[in-house]
């Protein structure tokens, strides 16, 4: 986790940053364009764009699933079983019960995405609050939280999640809760380390001297300064939440109502993989597209937010 706050691996800085064109310099515009920093900036922008395109390619059709002119996800046509893609207007083909695969993937995607988003919001709130409290107050609050985090890290996570789902039923709230529980330690640890750095800064003392209570200093001054960096990680966790949900659903611990989600669609199709390749391949590619998109956005944002850090801290000093 310390890696995120460490300055980027700079090339040996051979030039001053641009913007001082008036001073004569042997560094030409071409040199600047070739420099590591500019390349990194361009790569970050490319990642952001590519990520946004991939994500939207999945999210927009999923959001419009009810509006698009496709058959219902549970409409069975036993005379049109396992049609290959692009036959009879079935863009993704049909499954072993003659249901339109695209419709199943899009409707299942609504459930998967809802679970992913809710889980990330819940784990983000829990993680940021708990981590901030532990980092700011220290003492016994910190030791309790740290022990709790250690305990959870040493446990067989997927097994425990399966256990809870198997016992309390694969409903959407249970699965959302389970994924949130799986993910909050990451955010809590990051927030804790950010707050520990932040609480030593002079403005915290200033606010205390002005008579603010400890809680209001934390909530009104410290949290706003770290919440942006913490939410960046939350975005990356969205990708993991989608993957985790699909894994649970593949293992039979996913929601069945209102619609089967991606993992379940793939495990259903696995029996026919020798004859009907599309039943596994296409839903999987759909998941990969979404997760790649979210990961690229997260990566791009991280690369970009890392760059201006050095000048800003210099200006503050």
């Amino acid at each position: 986790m310390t890696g995120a706050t460490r300055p980027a691996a700079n090339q040996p800085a051979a030039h001053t940053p641009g913007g001082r064109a008036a001073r004569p310099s042997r560094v030409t515009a071409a040199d600047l364009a070739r420099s590591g920093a500019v390349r990194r900036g361009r790569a970050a922008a490319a990642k952001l764009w590519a990520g946004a395109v991939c994500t939207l390619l999945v999210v927009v059709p999923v959001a419009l699933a009810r509006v698009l002119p496709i058959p219902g996800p549970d409409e069975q046509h036993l005379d049109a079983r396992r049609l290959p893609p692009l036959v009879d207007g079935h863009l993704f083909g049909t499954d072993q019960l003659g249901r339109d695969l695209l419709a199943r993937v899009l409707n299942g995607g609504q459930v998967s995405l809802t679970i992913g988003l809710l889980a990330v919001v819940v784990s983000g709130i829990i993680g940021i609050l708990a981590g901030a409290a532990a980092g700011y107050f220290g003492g016994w609050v910190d030791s309790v939280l740290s022990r709790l985090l250690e305990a959870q890290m040493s446990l067989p996570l997927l097994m425990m999640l399966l256990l809870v789902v198997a016992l309390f039923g694969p409903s959407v709230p249970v699965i959302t809760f389970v994924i949130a529980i799986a993910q909050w330690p990451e955010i809590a640890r990051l927030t804790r380390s950010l707050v520990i750095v932040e609480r030593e800064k002079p403005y915290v003392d200033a606010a205390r001297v002005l008579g603010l209570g400890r809680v209001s200093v934390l909530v009104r001054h410290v949290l706003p300064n770290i919440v942006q960096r913490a939410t960046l990680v939350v975005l990356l966790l969205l990708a993991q939440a989608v993957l985790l949900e699909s894994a649970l659903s593949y293992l039979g611990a996913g929601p069945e109502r209102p619609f089967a989600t991606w993992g379940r669609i793939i495990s259903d199709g696995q029996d026919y993989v020798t004859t009907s390749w599309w039943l596994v391949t296409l839903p999987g590619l759909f998941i990969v597209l979404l997760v790649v998109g979210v990961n690229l956005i997260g990566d791009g944002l991280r690369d970009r937010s890392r760059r201006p850090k050095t000048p800003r801290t210099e200006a503050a000093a």
Partner: protein
Amino acid sequence: MVRYILRRLGQSALTVFLTVSAVFVLIRLAPGDPAASFAGPMATTEDLARVREQFGLDQPLPTQYLVFVRDMLTGNLGTSYSFQAPAFDVVIARLPYTTTLATSAILVTAFAAIPLGVWMARRADTRREAGVNVAGIAAQSMPEFWSGVMLLTVFAVLFPVLPASGFATWSGIVLPTITVALLQVALISRLVRREMGANLAAPYLVAARSRGVSERALTWRYAIPNSAIPVLTALGTRFAAMLNGVVVVEVVFAWPGVGSLVVRALETRDYPLIQATVLVTAGLAVLVQLLIDLAYPLLDPRVRIGKAVRR
């Protein structure tokens, strides 16, 4: 040193005990009746009562718990309902399959991810490195069950060069290992790149370079040893997690390890088997974690056992 190990062992035992207790309570709070799933759909009320009595399920919860703790302390984890054998033995019989798969996967990961990450750090911000970087993002975005099935389709169905499942011959382990390693290589190589990148830009390295140390020595004798600790920690943590059963991959390839056993135990509500699995795997995981922490001073003389360990 000895005191440190003893204290850590005590803490580990406590963690495992609390975990198993939590699982004990959790599975009994949940709806569903193990007696019904054991006795089958044709069972009469008398049958159910007999089964409950046989397994002690008719007792109040606190009594059940005390009996459970007493039995656990004497090394008795109960009889698995579905296997009709001591639950502990059932778990132990599956353990070698999981450890074999975990070991081969972690070895492949280490031998692929470390050179790859070093290469990426030395070629940072070139076009080829960016390509490998994006490939890594793609690899870590694939659900393991999907990449597993895809590998199966290609190498066992379309071009039948490898067995689809099973463990009779050595080649059966190839596809599961690749499936697990694919994700881990993507994750670990990025970590290696980050650590190496930080070290390659560190002032001590610039100083060494200005003294005329060759680039090869800078990489091998300066940057790599200093990047070793976080990387080995990550590898160790992954290994510990894999010992808990590589659940998804085991199910995809019908690999008879602990992971697929868990899935089956949960489906049949086999209380003793669930408890035994959690006990064994959680115990193993905390033990591996302890060994990793004990290995730090060997890797980095600056670390002293018993003091705070850099993570």
